[in-house]
């Protein structure tokens, strides 16, 4: 029988980074635990060692300086939803954080966990933060670096041990945003497809800049740049956006899952685009 995992409760960021470095590939960070604790259902072994981030104060802060919102990786979905409520620019984030999973999970699951779980295709925060042009901070004993979220998503599966996602930076832009997710049950589920949208408008009310991110359709969320380009210069019109999305949706290869086939996820994208646009009004 394998020994049960060890657990070290870090009380500061430097202690956490030290502990992760020392444990190397044997160790992993644990914040809310909502994904790691389901390892038995996935028939995955636990790591030999976990470094608890719960008691690291730096990771729990939400701050705003110089027009940049900085969200600690240890902030839970519930706290994030509350913190950004009522701000049209961040509505996409409030909805992503406030509607994912269920209330008890939202009280435990963290921003960092949502972004770092490579096998979780239906994560709500990922597309929401992508459309907000977020950056992430990766810290290690050697120092910190900052990189765009999209870049992080492409390297997260190969992140060396000892490196920890510590913060997310969301630049303020004066845009308006919306999050359209499609669970199978009305009451709530992991969404089968997500469209996150953030736009700025020119003085004539036309779309000056659009950022669209698509989640849950493929294994990793990504920006839909062709649609973004197609939207620029158009009025904020749900039908028009729907038409543009219909023409471009074939660039997605939907993932087949137990809950929904790939074609379904792609089929509903134009509807979600329209819903997101209409929600901006």
């Amino acid at each position: 029988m394998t020994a049960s995992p060890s657990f070290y409760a870090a009380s500061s960021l430097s202690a956490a980074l030290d502990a992760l470095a020392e444990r190397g590939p044997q160790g992993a960070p644990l914040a809310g635990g909502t994904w790691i604790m389901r390892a038995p259902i996935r028939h995955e072994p636990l790591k030999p060692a976990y470094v608890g981030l719960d008691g690291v104060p730096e990771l729990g802060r939400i701050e705003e300086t110089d027009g940049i919102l900085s969200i600690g990786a240890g902030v839970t979905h519930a706290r994030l939803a509350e913190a950004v409520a009522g701000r049209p620019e961040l509505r996409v984030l409030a909805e992503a954080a406030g509607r994912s999973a269920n209330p008890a999970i939202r009280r435990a699951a963290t921003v960092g966990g949502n972004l770092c779980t490579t096998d979780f295709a239906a994560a709500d925060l990922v597309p929401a933060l992508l459309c907000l042009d977020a950056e992430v901070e990766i810290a290690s004993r050697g120092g910190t670096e900052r990189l765009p979220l999209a870049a992080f998503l492409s390297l997260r599966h190969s992140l060396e041990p000892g490196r920890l996602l510590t913060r997310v930076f969301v630049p303020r832009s004066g845009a308006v945003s919306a999050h359209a997710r499609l669970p199978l049950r009305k009451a709530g589920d992991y969404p089968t497809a997500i469209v996150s949208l953030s736009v700025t408008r020119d003085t004539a009310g036309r779309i000056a800049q659009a950022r669209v991110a698509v989640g849950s359709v493929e294994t990793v969320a990504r920006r839909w740049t062709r649609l973004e380009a197609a939207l620029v210069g158009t009025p904020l019109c749900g039908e028009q956006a729907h038409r543009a999305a219909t023409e471009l949706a074939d660039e997605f290869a939907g993932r087949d899952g137990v809950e929904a086939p790939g074609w379904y996820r792609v089929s509903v994208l134009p509807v979600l685009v329209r819903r997101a646009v209409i929600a901006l009004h």
Partner: protein
Amino acid sequence: MSVDAVMEFRRRDAGDKLTGRTRYTIDRGAPGMLHAAVLRAQVASGRLAKLDTSKAAALPGVRAIATAADAPGRVGIGIADHSLFVVDRVRYVGEPLAAVAADTPEQAQAALEAIKVEIAPLPAILIMQDALAPGAPLIHPEWEDYKILLEGGARAGNVAWEATAVRGDVDAAFARPDVRIVESTFRVGRQNHMAFEPRAAVARYEEGRFHIETSTQVPWTVRNATAGFLGVPASQVRVTVPPVGGAFGLKFDVAIEPFAALLAKLSGRAVRLVNSREEEMLTCLFRENAEIRIRSAVTPAGEIAGREAVVLMDCGAYGGEQIFLTTMTAHTLGGNYRVGASRLVSRAVYTNTAPNGAFRACNGVYNTFALERHTDEIAAALGMDPLEFRRRNVLGDGDLGATGQKFEAEVLRPMLERMEALRAAAPPRRQDDERLYGRATTVGTWFVFTGPSAATVNMNADGSATLVTSGVEIGSGSMMQGLPQIVAATLGIQPEDVMVRQADTDAAGYDVGVGGGRQTVSLGAASLQAAQEVRGKLLAVAAQMLDALPDDLVMQNGRIEIAGPNGAGFSIAEVAAQAQALVGPVAGTGASTRKGVPSMPGCAVGHFIDALDIPVFAVHDCEVAVDPETGHVEVLAYRVVQDVGRALNRSAIGGQIQGGVVQGLGYALHEEVSIDADGRIRQNGFETYRVPLAADVVPVEVELYEGAPSLGPFGIKGAGEVPILNVGASVACAVANATGARVQELPLTPPRVLALLLGRQPELDFPHISPRWDDNLLRPHDQPT
């Protein structure tokens, strides 16, 4: 003298259940108890080449390992085709190979991993089409050697059981010049009960006998089947049942109890075995998947001259409940309507998948779906309003069922009228959006699964009574509301003063089990009889005490008095105490069983029940909105008119109807079971198997229809099983009406509905169901062996 058992009595167990004090089987244990685990096959089909437990047995903490050699017997329904462990052939993913008991759950798991298993793979047959293909490999090559427990069913190869019901000249009906033929095909998936409490047992071996505490609906089946598997006399097994945390038919069969019992005997210790959720998902005795072809010959005026149908039921790797359920096709698909002549065949088919089982209203749910969708297709073909078609054709007084049973009284027609009044009372729900709106009213026929039940009532000298039965508390109102009300009403005491003992096969007589809508009916009849005996004895003693005739006495409000104003009398406690002193403690016993309503000779072959003792009818109405872009179906309103015979406790019945309808909404819309190419159930828990949540449901508008004839005590019928019966039908018909699409399958998940609307879903085609009805039979209906 008549007594009134109608009350609004509240459950006495609610407080404990709300404060976490109720101890279900999973909450129980014993000092020094061992923890058991079951080694399960990971392939769907293969030959067991090697099973070596020697290394596992030597691991620390391992106290016992059981294998096929310890359980020589075979059990089953109709045919004994099921052994406890794989003997030499693996037939489904999850089939038990060995069981281990150890000091800790971790040690038990470690022992499982240390058992060496070699299985030589064989081709797996995962769908009925392949099982029925000519030359298909046999899932039970030794099928002819199995012991037959009930004669009459046709069997051969991968057809585990075949039941036929034929009445009248169907060929002549179809050949009539004035009829048109309407044909429909349907398919449904499996449904998982998702009972919150998994199957669980704590077993001991004491004084040469097994004692099993278990989460079951059928203590006597567990007793007898455990003995059958282990090859011991049934009298050596005692089964007791704590409160059960959800069952819905899942626990209507023996499950993991024999493993725990065997390990308790081998180890000499108490043994606890609890299924993990994953095991529950993998080995759920699902409501079976099925395929149905139905054809009807109807006249322009809407008369159903003839009908024929083929129903294929996937029983999984072993026959189990599906063998029995072949019977129910005649009463459900053959129910609802007056039909000139009909022939129905229901076939339980083996596949290399997890065995299926019983689930609330069983195959009635999908047969009703098929029949009601077919009925709407008939109405559409005739250009007739579907409600009008039903009004003309529903079973009425003196009409014949598919086995020639004569139905009594007009029930469905007045129920339909009630529903029309309910419909008329509220405008259709519409919102100002782009969704497609539709509604449907459907009818359904189900029954009460009568059969043997026993009860004893002990009258205590303090004026309270104890009711002893083998009934099980599963959350329905029977044990907590219906039965104490019946006893209390008969004895003139308060229902609070009737204790209901938990099931114990050592304490109460045989009982079929809690399910099939039978508990308040069958246990109620036995309890009523037992209470009446007590009543008679008390009245006799009181008559002596009062120097009066028993007939002149009234027994109510805790007293026995001479009838009339200011009649002298005694409290029931005083009478009971006096009786105890004079002749000893007062007790009464009661028993009930099937009445045996006649069918027409020769109509039913291979059936377990030829006619329904107590038919139960239901009329449902459903309004839906369908999002044509995402395939989401929202249920906007739901109404039920249910035939209850007589309502003993309206609140309890209302709770069953709301809960049953919502389970049906899950079946109709959300709950999907799929099987991967390796034969493994893909849904492994609550994430992937979606039950309805609070925001997915609507308050069900309920009207109880009373007064239909019933053989049940006080004229009651079972009310808890039937609410799920026509939910799939109602939703499917409403969605078809809303969208104009030909709905042939359940569940109507968003992807399935969208596929239907986008034309991505080809029409069902069943090459394994012959268009000629007779060609589907193993042997002609009128030539039973």
